[in-house]
C-alpha cells in the first residue's frame, strides 16, 4: 500500500495519567482510508487511552502523551485542539456513549453539527440522513436523550458524531452493555456507512468475536503495547484469539508477570479514567 491513502498513523506513543501513572508504552497502528480496523485487547490494556490520544482528548482526562507521534491526514494530532480535528473529519464516539442526557435527541444531533459550523440547510439535511440511518430515533427526537434506551443512546452518540461529516469515525466499545440484537443492528449500520459512504472506522472492542466479524483489519493491544496486527480473517483463524476466547491467558499472563512495567499501574489508570469519565 502506498503511503498517501494511510488516513491515520500512530507511531510508538507513550502516555501517562496524572503525571505519573503510565498507561501506554509504545503503541503503533495505522488506519488506511476506507477500512474498518478493530482494536482488541483485555479490559485495561490501553484501548481507550489509545483512542483518546488519537482524538487528542487525553488532556481532558489529566493524561498526556509523553512521546510518539500521531498523524491524521497530514495533521499532527497532538498539536491540534479536538475541535480542529473534528473539523478535519475525525469524529469520536466515546466509551459509555456520553450523550447529553438533558438535551433531547435532536438537540444532541445538532450539537454534533455545531463544530463544523453547519448552515441551517445543511443541518436539516444531515438530520434527515441520521434519521434515515436510525429510524427508531425519529419518534423520540423531542425526548431527553438520558431517558432513552441504551441502544438508542448509542445511536444518538453515533449520529451525533456523523453530524460533523467525518471521514474517520472512532468508536470506543460500541457494543458495551447492549443486547446482542441491538449490537448487531448497530454494526450493520456501521458496515453500511463504510461500504456505501466510504467512511473509515476505527473501533475498540472487548467483544472480539463481533468486532472481527465486521472489521477488515485488527490490532491487538496488551499492557499498553501493540502486540499483533493482521487482517481480521487471519486473526480469527489464528491461535491468539482462540486463547483469548478460551480465557487461557497463558501467554498474556506470562507477559504480564515478566513485563518491564508495573501491571498494576496500567489497570489502575484505566479504572481512574473510567471513574473520571463518569
Amino acid at each position, binding site marked *: 500500500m502506498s503511503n498517501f491513502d494511510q488516513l491515520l498513523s500512530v507511531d510508538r506513543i507513550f502516555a501517562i495519567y*496524572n503525571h*505519573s*501513572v503510565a498507561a501506554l508504552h509504545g503503541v503503533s497502528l495505522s488506519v488506511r482510508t476506507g477500512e474498518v480496523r478493530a482494536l482488541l485487547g483485555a479490559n485495561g490494556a490501553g484501548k481507550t487511552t489509545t483512542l483518546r490520544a488519537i482524538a487528542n482528548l487525553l488532556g481532558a482526562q489529566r493524561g498526556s502523551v509523553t512521546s510518539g507521534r500521531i498523524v491524521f491526514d497530514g495533521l499532527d494530532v497532538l498539536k491540534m485542539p479536538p475541535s480542529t480535528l473534528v473539523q478535519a473529519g475525525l469524529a469520536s464516539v466515546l466509551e459509555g456513549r456520553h450523550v447529553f442526557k438533558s438535551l433531547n435527541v435532536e438537540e444532541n444531533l445538532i450539537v454534533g453539527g455545531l463544530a463544523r459550523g453547519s448552515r441551517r440547510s445543511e443541518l436539516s439535511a444531515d438530520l434527515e440522513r441520521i434519521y434515515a440511518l436510525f429510524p427508531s430515533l425519529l419518534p423520540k427526537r423531542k425526548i431527553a436523550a438520558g431517558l432513552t434506551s441504551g441502544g438508542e443512546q448509542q445511536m444518538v452518540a453515533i449520529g451525533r458524531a456523523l453530524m460533523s461529516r467525518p471521514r474517520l469515525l472512532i468508536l470506543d466499545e460500541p457494543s458495551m452493555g447492549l443486547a446482542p440484537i441491538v449490537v448487531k443492528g448497530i454494526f450493520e449500520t456501521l458496515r453500511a456507512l463504510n461500504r456505501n459512504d466510504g467512511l473509515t472506522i476505527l473501533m475498540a472492542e472487548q467483544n472480539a468475536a463481533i468486532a472481527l466479524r465486521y472489521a477488515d483489519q485488527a490490532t491487538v493491544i496488551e499492557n499498553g503495547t501493540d502486540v499483533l496486527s493482521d487482517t481480521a480473517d487471519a486473526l480469527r483463524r489464528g491461535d491468539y484469539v482462540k486463547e483469548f476466547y478460551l480465557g487461557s491467558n497463558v501467554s498474556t499472563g506470562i507477559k504480564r508477570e515478566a513485563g518491564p512495567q508495573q501491571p498494576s499501574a496500567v489497570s489502575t489508570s484505566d479504572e481512574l479514567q473510567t471513574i473520571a469519565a463518569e
Partner: protein
Amino acid sequence: MTNAYDAQQSRGLLPAWGYLLGIGVVAYGIVPLLASDYVYDAILAPFLALSLAAVGLNLLTGYAGQVSLGSAAFMAVGAFAAYNFNLRIDGLPFILSVLFAGLTAAGFGVVFGLPSLRLKGFYLALSTLAAQFFVEWALTKFDWFSNYNSSGVIDAPPIVIFGVPFSGPSGRYYFALTVVLLLSAFAARLVNTQTGRNFIAVRDNETAARIIGVPVFKTKLLAAAVSSFIIGIAGILWAFAYLRTVEPHGFNLDRSFEILFIIIIGGLATLRGAFLGAALIVVLPLVLSRIGTLLLGGYFNSGVLDMSQRILIGALIIVFLIVEPDGLAALWIRARNRFFGALTSRRPAREVTA
C-alpha cells in the same frame, strides 16, 4: 486529590524522629536567640495559631475529603469556651480549660458535621457556612459568652500551666509552640493509623469504603470531631497567645477562607503543607507591604500600595495554583529530592506509590 507525597513524607534522608528533633532544637533553641518581640508577636504567634488551624482543617478536608468554610466558627467556639471555663469554674487548671474548650469545639463539629452524612461537595461546603454565621451571631447575641462585657470582647486570662506562667512574648510563644507540636504529632500519628486510612478511604471513594467495611458515618463524624477539636484549640492560641483580646467578629468568614487558602497553597493531605502554607500567608503580605512601603512609599500613599498588594497576592494565588496545584509541600519534596538526588545519585528521585 490523591497524593503520592504523603506516603513518603518520612522517607527522606533522616528518619522521622530526626526531623522532629531538628524542628524541636530549632524551635525551642535557635528561634528564641534570633527573635525579637516583633517576630514573636506579629509573626510567630499568628503563624503558630493559623498553622494549627490548618492542621485541623487538613484532617477534615485533605484527608477526609470534606471542604469546610466554617473553620473560624470553631476557632471562636474554642476561644470563647476556654474563656468561660476558665472564668466560671473556680480553680480549674488552665490546661483543663483548654482541653474542655477543645472538646466543646469537637461537639460543635459533630453537630455541624451531621449534614456531611447526606451532602457532598460544594453543597456541604456551603452548609458549613451555617455554622460560621450561627456561631458569630450567638456569640454576639448572648452576653453571657463574653461575661456581660458591654463591648462583647473577651480578654485573655493569664496562661499558667502546672504553676509555670507563660507570659511575655516569648512565654506565649513557648506555650503556643508546645501546643502546636503536641497536636501536630497527634495528627501525624492519627493519619497513619487505621482511622487515618479510613479517612482517606472515605475521601477517595465512599461507596468503595463502605464495601470494604469502613464505617463511613462514624468516620465522617470522627473526622469532624478531631478536626474541630484541633481548630478549637487553634482558636484559643489565636485569642490568648496572639491577639489577647478578641470579639466574635474577629472569627469571620475571611478567617475561614484564610485557613482554607493555607491548606490549598500548602498542599492538601500533608501536615507539612499546613505549616508551609501558614508561613506564606502570614509572611508574604508583610514582606510585600514592607518592601512596597520602602521602595515606593515616597511616591504613593499606603492605600495605593495596599491595593496593588491585594492585586499581587490574588495574582500570586492564581499563578501558584496553576504552577503547583499540589501545593508548597509538593514543591518542598521536589526541591528536597533534587537536592538529595544530587547528593546520593543512586537514590531514585521519586517513586510512584499509586
